[in-house]
């Protein structure tokens, strides 16, 4: 038991160092794309912490929603913003290796941990009281039904707000139409 606890502590320490290091790197980069890259690794590290804490369901959600959906949303925003010119200049000035070496190294540490946990599955799980997705679902839909309804309304209002804010101003559309007409004439 003592041996297992020591292994868990070591895994937690390595993951914590990766999470904090990549988070600090993410907020200090000049290129937004590099920040997003570092933050994906940071979220993966936090997912490992969730797994070690006995929350495998939340670990999967962290990867799917945070590192997947939300970061892709940021990526789409950066693409829509057309930051192309200056970003490419910056990319050219930097060493090509330095930009991806940091996230790659942090990702390798996480991969090593993943392989270790996979091979010592029984050791890690024996020391770890897991809260299963079934328990979470029961609590969510029996005790917190009102919260689920409120979250549904929040997401709906966010959807409506985003579609309202994302609309082009009417004056812009009108001007485009006039320009188009004058060209055709």
């Amino acid at each position, binding site marked *: 038991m003592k041996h297992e606890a020591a292994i868990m502590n070591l895994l*937690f320490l390595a993951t914590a160092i990766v999470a904090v290091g990549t988070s600090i790197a993410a907020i200090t980069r000049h290129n937004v794309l590099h*920040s997003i890259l570092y933050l994906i690794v940071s979220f993966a590290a936090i997912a490992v912490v969730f797994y070690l804490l*006995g929350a495998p369901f939340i670990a999967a959600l962290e990867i799917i929603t945070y590192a997947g959906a939300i970061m892709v949303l*940021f990526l789409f925003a950066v693409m829509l913003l057309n930051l192309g010119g200056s970003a490419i200049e910056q990319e050219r000035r930097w060493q090509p290796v330095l930009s991806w070496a940091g996230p790659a190294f942090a990702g390798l540490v996480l991969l090593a941990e993943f392989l270790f946990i996979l091979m010592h599955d029984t050791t890690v799980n024996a*020391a770890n*009281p897991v809260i299963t997705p079934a328990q979470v679902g029961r609590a969510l839909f029996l005790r917190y039904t009102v919260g689920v309804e409120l*979250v549904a309304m929040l997401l709906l*209002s966010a959807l409506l707000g985003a579609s309202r804010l994302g609309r*082009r*101003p009417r004056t812009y559309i009108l001007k485009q139409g006039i320009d188009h007409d004058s060209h055709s004439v």
Partner: protein
Amino acid sequence: MTPIPFEQILLLGTVLFVVGLAGVLARRNLILILLSIEIMLNAAGLIFIAGGSKFHEPDGQVMFLFILAVAAAEVTIGLALILAQNHASRTLDADAADQLRDR
């Protein structure tokens, strides 16, 4: 009760929260400010998971699900606002965000 000391998890959550706070206060790029807010929300969720793990209750994970929904809604609105501001003033500077009203 997991073998990881509760204090260490609290420490990790606090450090991550402070890193996010420093990002919000120090950076002027609006996208980076949103990313820092994501770090802070994640740190809060980590504390909830740690609490749920300490008392072996699923409530902490339920709270994380709510934080996840709030983060998704916040990011959607935030990015829409950033796109609107970039459309209006061609900049991502946080100090230029005082003229969002429709003209």
